[in-house]
């Protein structure tokens, strides 16, 4: 029989490498699969999104300039840190979603593997999709993919950790920075993942995490002039058209994905073509 008082964790946002509460002061209730109260995460507002975009924009040039090798190392570091906190994540996933510990453990393993897989792509993606183009003249003509800038993303509801990693890893591995809205019903693993990020040498502002309602935040993501691309994988298909219309106003690239593959990385990259005279 213990006399200790429960130490409950406060789930906050993750913006610019810090853990602020939402500026709105709002929270919402998260319950587990059995309907029992678990936590009061932040209900982020559009102003939190605005702040996160400012942080992501400021961080982007530095992150983009890091070598592919370094970016790969940092993603691998995320995998290392996640592996070290296996027990905590398995508990969180199992308690919120109601899946068995065995299934939760499998999701954690898949998440770590997925991070390692994307880490490997950092120094290979430009070889895969870049090209030396044949041109009719004394020039070398290269096409190289480059990062797009600030990307917003809506993580799928489930699986809450693996789905989250599948959204952020392909975006940041190429040098983009990301503002991601975590699963609404199961945001805890994303918010605990913020602690992994904070201890993995990911520069402040490269990954920014919000928790809240998709219907409230997604339209502001689509219309924001300073977000270059939007991943709407986590949004119901019937909402896609509306967001694509809002995003068309500012030429935002909007995609949703079904699986993990290198196309996910390339979706948020832009091709740059360089002409270089031969013999100079």
């Amino acid at each position: 029989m213990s006399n200790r008082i429960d130490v409950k964790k406060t789930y906050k946002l993750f913006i610019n490498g810090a853990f602020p509460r939402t500026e709105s002061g709002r929270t919402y209730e998260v319950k587990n699969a059995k309907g029992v109260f678990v936590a009061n995460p932040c209900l982020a507002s559009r102003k939190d999104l605005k702040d996160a975009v400012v942080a992501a924009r400021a961080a982007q040039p530095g992150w983009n300039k890091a070598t592919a090798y370094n970016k790969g190392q940092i993603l691998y570091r995320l995998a290392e840190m996640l592996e070290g906190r296996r027990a905590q994540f398995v508990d969180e996933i199992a308690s919120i979603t109601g899946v068995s510990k065995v299934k939760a453990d499998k999701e954690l393993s898949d998440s770590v593997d997925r991070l390692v897989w994307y880490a490997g792509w950092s120094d290979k993606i430009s070889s895969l999709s870049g090209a030396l183009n044949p041109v009719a003249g004394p020039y070398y003509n290269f096409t190289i993919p480059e990062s797009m800038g600030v990307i917003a993303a809506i993580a799928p509801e489930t699986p809450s950790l693996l789905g989250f990693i599948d959204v952020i890893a392909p975006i940041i591995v190429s040098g983009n920075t990301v503002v991601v809205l975590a699963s609404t019903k199961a945001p805890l693993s994303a918010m605990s993942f913020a602690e992994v990020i904070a201890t993995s040498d990911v520069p402040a502002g490269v990954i920014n995490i919000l928790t809240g309602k998709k219907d409230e935040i997604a339209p502001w993501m689509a219309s924001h002039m300073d977000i270059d691309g939007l991943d709407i994988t986590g949004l119901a298909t019937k909402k896609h058209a509306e967001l694509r219309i809002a995003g068309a106003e500012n030429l935002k690239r909007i995609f949703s994905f079904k699986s993990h593959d290198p196309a996910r990385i390339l979706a948020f990259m832009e091709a740059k073509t360089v002409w270089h005279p031969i013999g100079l």
Partner: protein
Amino acid sequence: MSFYGLVDGTDASLKRYLDALPGVDQVGADARAAMLATRSIKTTSKRWAIDTAISMVDLTTLEGADTVGKVQALCAKAVRPDPTDLTIPSVGAVCVYNDMVATARTHLDSIGGHHVGVAAVSTAFPSGRASMAVKIQDTQDALNAGASEIDMVIDRGAFLSGQYIDVFNEIVEIKELCGDRAHLKVIFETGELVTYDNVRKASFLAMAAGADFIKTSTGKVAPAATAPVVLVMLEAVRDFYSMTKTRIGVKPAGGIRNTKDAIKQLVLVNETAGPEWLTPSLFRIGASALLNDLLMQRMKMDDGYYASPAYVTID
């Protein structure tokens, strides 16, 4: 010189005048400034505040790397902050180093910016460490080049070592030089004055000596225009008005980078000095990055979605 009848120009009278000032309640000033910073300004009030703040900006470039081209671009931006929206007011003035004054004045006049002033930072800005002869020549240069506002720095070393009369006499001399040709703004560099008591003393000293404006900082030293310091200065101009019926202007400069900060300053002005001070002739904000954020907030209010820095000019 009458100095509003407050002092007679002697060291003894100046000491008496400054010693009679009550000390500043530091905790109270911090708390009052923090409380006023929580005011929420929305919709039409925010719209008014943004436009008012734009008209109060002293658009500043004080870099060793300033070029004629950069100053001209700054002037163009001062007259039309966003060329695609003619409803946006011009800023109050452009603020440049002395050698760029002629460039700025000529360019402003050539693009229809007669109403935008040129402020010159003089008297061995930013340190103020030069002989009086040099400071006078410096100011004379700026006036000859067409400056309509002189931003002078005080000798902080003299002030901190208690030689108030030296600081006083310098301001008097520069004021005489400016005459009717230019407004005189006196920069305290509050980050170096250490205490709020000193800020209050410097304020009353400068006002009695003939300053038209009192200005917090050069922008080269941190901390610069913190809210409590601006509060103390606004209280000083308010009290000076009740003593002399003369309204002195206030210019916070340095560290005011976004719309939220600017609106906090306007709230401070309204609640401390009073609404009479909410005009560019009595309140200015020295800034460079602020204007872009004001423009972006204005776009957001017009368009209904967040703006991008890619759609405003860099300088």
